């Protein structure tokens, strides 16, 4: 079993905190520029221009893309040839906290009941053990709450038509509206239990958004949904136009014969996230 070099790990984690807050993902930037190119209406086109200019300024000046630097969520995928213990987990969480402070990001985390002064402490972490993986993958998803507040879960009957599920997803996007910072990336989780459906909806953001889903059923659903979402004409800043979402991404899991949980998570146009691939 390989043990992690904690010092190296810490510096890598600190790097992705800065990267996720200051640099827009390549696939996301590509689709934003495409939306700008294709937009014909003046107001939404201007709004897309501001979003693109903002990304350039943020990177150049090491300024956060958005002042809501989010609640940092860490996703770990651990392979079979690596040993991970609580010390490693703590080191990752502490590095995130330290990097938030070092990079002048916003302390946005508070006690859920007392509220009080906000701090940098309280990053969330999810861990999966992956048998065909060597080494470890770390993804950081700082989630802003303008869009997080629009998350929804529905527990469907097992006999439901796919079209009803799609109607529900469309209704969530419609409700998210201008305040969740469109053009969105829509994450959907289908299956598992209530908690896994919502978690899958977030995990759906971690893959490339400019690539087709490998699962044929999901690929067709994503295609249909993206078309319908863009017919909502919410558009950047809610100013209309042809792009309300850049992509719809769906992930699924086995579920129970008696039900069908569907979780929907909305990401703003920045979809801040960054990744580390540790090969051992």
């Amino acid at each position: 079993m390989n043990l992690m070099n904690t010092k190296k790990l810490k510096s890598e984690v600190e790097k992705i905190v800065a990267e996720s807050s200051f640099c827009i993902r390549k696939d996301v930037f590509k689709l934003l520029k495409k939306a700008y190119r294709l937009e014909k209406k003046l107001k939404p086109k201007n709004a897309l221009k501001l979003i693109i200019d903002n990304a350039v300024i943020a990177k150049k000046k090491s300024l956060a893309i958005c002042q809501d630097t989010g609640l940092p969520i860490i996703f770990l995928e651990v392979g079979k040839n690596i040993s991970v213990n609580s010390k490693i987990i703590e080191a990752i969480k502490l590095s995130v906290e330290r990097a938030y402070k070092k990079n002048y990001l916003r302390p946005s985390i508070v006690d859920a009941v007392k509220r009080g002064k906000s701090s940098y402490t309280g990053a969330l972490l999810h861990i999966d053990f992956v048998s065909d993986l060597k080494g470890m993958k770390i993804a950081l998803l700082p989630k802003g709450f303008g869009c997080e507040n629009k998350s929804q879960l529905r527990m469907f009957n097992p006999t439901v038509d796919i079209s009803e599920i799609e109607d529900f997803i469309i209704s969530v996007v419609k409700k998210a509206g201008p305040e969740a910072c469109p053009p969105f990336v829509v994450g959907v989780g289908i299956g598992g239990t209530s908690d896994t459906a919502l978690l899958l909806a977030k995990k759906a953001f971690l893959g490339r958004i400019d690539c087709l889903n490998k699962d044929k059923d999901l690929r067709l659903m994503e295609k249909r949904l993206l078309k319908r979402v863009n017919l909502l004409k919410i558009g950047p800043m809610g100013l209309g136009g042809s792009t309300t979402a850049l992509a719809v991404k769906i992930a699924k899991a086995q579920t129970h014969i008696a039900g069908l949980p569907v979780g929907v998570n909305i990401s703003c146009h920045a979809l801040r996230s960054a990744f580390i691939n540790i090969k051992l």
Partner: protein
Amino acid sequence: MNKISKVSDFKKLSAGDEVQFSGAIYTGRDQAHKKLVEILKAGKKMPLDLRGKIIYYCGPTATRPGHKIGSCGPTTSQRMDKLTEPLLKAGLSAMIGKGRRAKSVRLACKKYKSVYFLSPGGCGALLAERVTSKKIIAFSELGPEAIQKLEVKDFPLIVAIDTKGKSIYSDL
């Protein structure tokens, strides 16, 4: 794009107008709103006179040395809806945020001749370049949620609700 610097000119604006504002705006979001409304209800002295002022729903990131301010885009206005009317009644002239508002806010804009502006959501780095100075005015214990006076130059805004109560969006 119209340049504007006088609050008294806001009544000439119509929903959908794009303007660039230069002058003073005051950050204030959830907790600051809660406190201001409590002070108004108790009839105590306000930390700032709201008459003719503009509130910006914003909690910036920390400021890097050598910079005027950190990233400073708008937050979702909807959360301030229930706390808005008392501030308009106390003389607040305008609000800046993102997204739709409740019908009560739209009607209050008409009643008190106030304007609700949008600034571009998720563009905090770009907006930081339009801020020339900042100063804490009240509630410093709230950290990023403190009320700060920002001097801005050519701050890009869109009129979402005008003084006639006309909105570019449907009510929430």
